[in-house]
């Protein structure tokens, strides 16, 4: 009979896939697609929750696809970290799909938005759950092509312009990733991550070649995660598509890159670690600073948020660079928190943009008086982003600072704290300009929105804000989970044994 853990590992992949298939079958019937997408998203949340529950109680879950023993077939693995990522992704997905029902224009919904977002989720789940290096590449490509299409969906000029840069750079990244996988196979003759992890810890392995192979992954995953000298595509493209789209990819995708980096650089590329980690530390510092300065420089709601994505990636990398259980836990928590917060901020900007018809801070204003509730929701997310207590952003920041100081990495901690002040500054810039300032005179009248529209626009924002508050206030649950996830990530024997069934 059907075995539950086989199913649990697959549901996050199969649900969106079938959802997308059914959406394709009901092409031209948008309402049906909406219904399918909503149902699937809900099911995803439940399924991924169940997966997290199961992993939390039974340890790492593994299914060998096709019933082929480990290094020969493809393995799906869920440890706490990957399950957490899947849960985060599905919750975000649910919120965004709910928002899209009214937050996205009809023509775009007509041209395959729902199958795309579902397949995107499948890609995310695939990257998080796979235990095979080449399979990782495949799911990254799924993600990528979905992003390409979603960014260009609608084909307006700014979109196309951003897309050209996005597409070119990311194709390059895929090429490098593939090359890197080739090199790894050329050295070891294996693709299974657990087996690679085992091989790399053997004395017979050629460490310097492995170090060389790792650079391909640093660069290609670094591009996907938007690290310092590689992030250019992100600010060029993320603000161009409609909010429903940029909120999802902006909130989630770079974190998937970071996830892959953490996974690979804790599991496989553990040769010459001091060198790699020193490089990460420097990169993390630059990424934070450059990103946040970009945010400080701009006066467009979405551009500020885009640059902040870069900046926050620096924090996540910092946790990896410190490389203690605590710091990895901080990074994991940071990822979860950041996905929610960033998505929510984008959604808020979407509501403002939709109701006021602009994203330029200089043209907006008076929202504090007109929409105090939205202001509160924004404030929760913005302050959480800046890491103010007791919201969700505080804990990971605190953990990272603590881990950094304990590991005596004073410089990077100092940089991160200064960056968080500038983050606060740029968030208050939005607050000052959009909410507090008096609205400059414009001749545009506000488009009216009916009650249902408003409810559907607000509901996901409220939901995510509650998530943020929950993580912040009931921090023990989140931190405990993140800490155990980090322990699992660093205790690679667990992973290897689970996959190779030793």
């Amino acid at each position: 009979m059907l075995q539950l853990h086989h199913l649990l590992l697959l549901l996050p992949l199969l649900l969106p896939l079938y959802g997308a298939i059914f959406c394709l079958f009901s092409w031209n019937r948008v309402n049906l697609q909406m219904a399918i997408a909503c149902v699937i998203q809900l099911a995803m949340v439940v399924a991924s929750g169940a997966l997290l529950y199961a992993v939390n109680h039974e340890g790492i879950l593994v299914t060998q696809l096709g019933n082929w023993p480990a290094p020969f077939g493809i393995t799906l693995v869920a440890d706490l970290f990957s399950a957490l990522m899947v849960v985060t992704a599905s919750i975000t997905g649910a919120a965004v799909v709910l928002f899209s029902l009214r937050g996205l224009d009809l023509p775009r919904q007509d041209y395959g938005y729902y199958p795309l977002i579902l397949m995107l989720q499948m890609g995310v789940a695939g990257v998080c759950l796979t235990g095979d290096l080449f399979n990782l590449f495949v799911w990254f490509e799924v993600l990528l092509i979905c992003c390409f299409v979603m960014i260009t969906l609608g084909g307006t000029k700014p979109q196309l312009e951003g897309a050209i840069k996005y597409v070119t750079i990311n194709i390059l990244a895929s090429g490098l990733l593939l090359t890197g996988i080739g090199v790894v196979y050329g050295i070891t003759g294996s693709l299974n991550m657990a087996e690679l992890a085992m091989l790399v810890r053997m004395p017979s392995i050629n460490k310097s070649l492995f170090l060389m192979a790792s650079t391909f992954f640093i660069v290609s995953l670094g591009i996907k995660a938007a690290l310092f000298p590689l992030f250019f595509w992100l600010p060029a493209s993320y603000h161009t598509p409609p909010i429903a789209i940029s909120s999802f990819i902006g909130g989630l995708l770079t974190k998937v890159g970071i996830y892959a980096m953490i996974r690979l650089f804790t599991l496989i590329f553990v040769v010459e670690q001091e060198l790699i980690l020193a490089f990460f530390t420097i990169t993390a510092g630059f990424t934070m600073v450059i990103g946040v300065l970009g945010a400080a420089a701009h006066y467009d709601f979405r551009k500020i948020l885009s640059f902040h994505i870069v900046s926050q990636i620096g924090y996540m990398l910092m946790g990896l660079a410190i490389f203690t259980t605590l710091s990895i836990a901080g990074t994991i928590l940071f990822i979860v928190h950041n996905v929610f917060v960033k998505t929510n901020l984008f959604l808020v900007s979407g509501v403002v943009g939709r109701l006021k018809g602009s994203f330029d801070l200089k043209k907006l204003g008076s929202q504090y008086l007109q929409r105090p509730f939205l202001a509160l929701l924004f404030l929760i997310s913005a302050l959480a982003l800046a890491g103010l207590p007791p919201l969700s952003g505080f804990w990971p920041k605190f953990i990272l600072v603590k881990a950094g100081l304990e590991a005596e990495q004073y410089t990077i901690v100092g940089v991160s704290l200064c960056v968080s002040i500038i983050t606060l500054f740029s968030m208050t810039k939005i607050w000052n300009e959009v909410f507090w300032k008096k609205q400059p005179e414009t001749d545009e009248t506000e488009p009216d929105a009916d009650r249902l529209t408003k409810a559907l626009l607000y509901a996901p924002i409220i939901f995510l804000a509650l998530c943020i508050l929950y993580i912040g206030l009931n921090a023990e649950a989140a931190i405990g989970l993140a800490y155990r996830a980090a322990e699992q990530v660093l205790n690679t024997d667990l992973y290897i044994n689970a996959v190779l069934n030793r």
Partner: protein
Amino acid sequence: MDIVLPFITGLLFATGLYLILHRHFFKLILGIILFGLATNLFIFTIGRLTRGGSPIIPQGSEVAIEPYADPVPQALLLTAIVIGFGIQAFAIVLVKRVYQAFGTNNLDDLNNTDKTIIPPKE
């Protein structure tokens, strides 16, 4: 051939990149395609070459008989080629659309969205 193919691969990488660095759209596309081709060759070459012996189990045998080429890079390559095709096709169409929308074939004309403009000092 083991010695020559790496050089050809390198040459293709270089040519692809060189074309990508140009401003012209069409060269960008050519570059992307060449770059993909180079990546594929890279994978193929790194899996050690075997002349002839394709990874097909001969008639009457139940297991493959040496010498046969390593089927793993081939399978990876097949997947990669197909994925690459999908993405390249999309890129080609994208370039066309960009050309239609902007009426230019110069990439440098496309920096309205992400160029940071410094406002004059007040």
